[in-house]
């Protein structure tokens, strides 16, 4: 209180986030610098790998084993969409149809956004270029959201968390350079946990919904956070609306699973078709019970 009895607030005692816009990590100099370096590396990798492929006259990666239509090789960007990227490229162009049923194992968000942008451009822009731009945006979000979460956990941890993810002994730097979905998954995961901690229930559930539609394992985090909200509601620590919002990603996942199972006449099609990618995830765990 001042001498006139008015409430005064010392700006230095305010929580850090209250004096910042929500996008502050996206414009943080370190985040911007890292993203620029990754973008330069990505272009160097893409062009040099594209040149190497062109000089051999052979299209590498998975594109030559996929039953695909309308895929055109684009020098320079094609190598950026090798591996996982070529699957999303394929799904964005061809959709989920009988031509290659196992593609249903890939959840739809990344491909759907790519397809939408492709349509917005009148299908005149290369799909590989759209995938590459989308991937770069996911990298930006992934680095920024990681920085936000850990910097708010403890000052100075943001930079270290980003470096542990980029330069991990897991040797997965390439996911930040080629069109893998992991940067998007990382962005949405840390964003979900940030929003959950800040008790932004609806926004958190929306982020979890995107996470679930990006990769199958997203629903696991949504499920755990939903159970946590339910437990906290039973203790009177969260409102009922938080629990209701928690149902959103699970409901979307359930609708997608039922829909795709009926569509492809196969129980849990989105998971069962993992087997055709050489991933017998459910077979070994279930032993003799070959329910897929």
């Amino acid at each position, binding site marked *: 209180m001042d001498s006139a009895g008015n409430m005064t607030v010392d700006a230095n005692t305010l929580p850090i986030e209250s004096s910042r816009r929500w996008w502050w990590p996206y414009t943080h100099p370190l985040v911007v610098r890292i993203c620029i370096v990754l973008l330069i590396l990505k272009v160097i990798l893409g062009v040099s*790998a594209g040149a*190497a492929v062109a000089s051999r006259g052979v299209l590498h990666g998975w594109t030559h084993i996929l039953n695909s239509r309308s895929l055109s090789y684009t020098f320079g960007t094609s190598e950026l969409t090798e591996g996982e990227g070529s699957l999303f490229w394929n799904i964005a162009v061809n959709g989920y149809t009988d031509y290659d049923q196992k593609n249903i194992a890939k959840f739809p968000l990344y491909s759907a956004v790519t397809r939408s942008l492709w349509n917005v451009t009148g299908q005149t822009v290369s799909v590989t270029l759209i995938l590459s731009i989308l991937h770069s945006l996911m990298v930006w979000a992934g680095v920024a959201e990681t920085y936000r979460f850990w910097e708010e956990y403890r000052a100075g941890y943001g930079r270290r968390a980003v470096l542990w993810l980029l330069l*991990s002994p*897991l040797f997965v730097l390439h996911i930040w350079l080629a069109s893998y979905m992991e940067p998007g998954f990382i962005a949405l995961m840390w964003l979900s946990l940030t929003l959950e901690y800040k008790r932004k229930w609806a926004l958190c559930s929306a982020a979890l919904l995107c996470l679930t539609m990006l990769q199958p394992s997203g629903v696991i985090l949504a499920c755990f956070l939903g159970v946590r909200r339910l437990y906290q509601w039973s203790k009177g620590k969260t409102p009922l609306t938080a629990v209701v919002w928690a149902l959103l990603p699970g409901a979307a996942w359930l609708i997608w699973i039922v829909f795709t199972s009926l569509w492809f006449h196969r129980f849990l099609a989105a998971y069962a078709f993992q087997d055709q990618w050489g991933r*017998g995830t459910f*077979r*070994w765990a279930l032993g003799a019970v070959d329910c897929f």
Partner: protein
Amino acid sequence: MAHSAGPWEQWIVFNELNLKPGFAFGYLVTDISIAWAALGFGCGVWLWLRLSAERRQKLGGAWVMPLFTCFVVLIPFCTLVASVQRYSLTTLIGVWPLLLSDRVQDSPWFDLVETLIWMLSLLMCLLILVAFVTGYKYEWILFF
């Protein structure tokens, strides 16, 4: 029912594929990365249990991250080694050194160790990318 190998058979197959193109560097990368994932899971859960309740709350709740890590990495790892590195990165395993105690993390020696690990990892990643560009990618790079 098709034959399905357990985790250790899968690991052997995985390493054999890495050696097949005559690229022993892939074998080294595979084993270091899988060892780091295993270390990250063990240390991550142990360090999590030692965190204060307040810090656990800031990390998404009392048990959300360890359970999520277990379901996303450990269970698939028991069925298939492939891609364990990528899935590890999206969980607590990717950042587990940040859970070490403040006393350890505030030490200048820790800064040095951390920086050395990052430098070595970057070096290895650059070698992987060179291998990728020059055509050694077929059998093993797709497993990452």
